[in-house]
């Protein structure tokens, strides 16, 4: 595409990634979470693919596979954290420490440091969705580029 689209993509791709991180990070306070934030961040890959072209995303295939596996493993490990009570029990909520602050009941402005394992699982699923959808996009973009006809 032309220089205009490429320059705007240069500006907007970091912004989209930060916004995806924000959506994942505040998943337990505002609408959002791992699935939505991963989809938003994968849109940055789509923008890179359309603005710069398929050769630019060639190197990204291996990192995305690693991200997807990492996210899946982290999700299962976080599920096993509460195995003393039951699988997927939220063993960190309300205990103090990491993400363990108590939350007042009823409407409140929201405290980031709450909700136990939920934010960590958000990050695991977010990385997984980013890796999976990004890998799909890269594969579609690279398929049949040079040797087709």
């Amino acid at each position, binding site marked *: 595409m032309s220089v205009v689209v490429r320059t705007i993509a240069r500006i907007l791709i970091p912004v989209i990634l930060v916004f995806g991180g924000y959506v994942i990070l505040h998943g337990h306070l*505002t609408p959002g979470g791992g699935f939505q934030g991963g989809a938003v961040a994968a849109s940055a890959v789509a923008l890179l693919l359309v603005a710069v072209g398929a050769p630019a995303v060639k190197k990204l295939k291996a990192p995305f596979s690693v991200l997807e596996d990492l996210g899946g493993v982290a999700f299962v490990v976080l599920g096993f954290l509460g195995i003393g009570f039951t699988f997927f029990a939220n063993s960190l909520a309300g205990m103090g420490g990491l993400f363990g602050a108590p939350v007042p009941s009823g409407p409140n402005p929201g405290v980031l440091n709450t909700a136990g394992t939920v934010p960590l699982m958000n990050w695991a699923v977010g990385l997984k969705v980013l890796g999976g959808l990004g890998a799909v996009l890269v594969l579609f973009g690279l*398929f049949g580029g040079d040797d087709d006809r």
Partner: protein
Amino acid sequence: MIGNVPFVACMVLVLLGLWALLFRRNLIKVVIGLKVIENGVNLYLVATGYVKGGIAPIYTYAPPDAAMVLPTPQALTLTSIVIGLATTALMLAFVVVIHRHKRTLDGCKVTELSG
């Protein structure tokens, strides 16, 4: 006040997708029909959980003493949307490969697996 219009609209969406599945032979059109069915089902699930006069089930900056809509259908729909994209990509990959090998997108002409 508006009766069952949203539910009927969901059914119309599902029927449209079914029409595309049954009477269109182009494979990409079939995938589009599946997307339309998926949209209808997602809309149906979310409409099931709506409570008249309710607010979104989030306590951040919520007005006090307001009824909330039901959260469980939303949670189910949420995961189904992202999964729907991945499965659509899988179907389109099949379509691309079929076109590469058979030089056609007509579902009736791809006969290896029939009969």
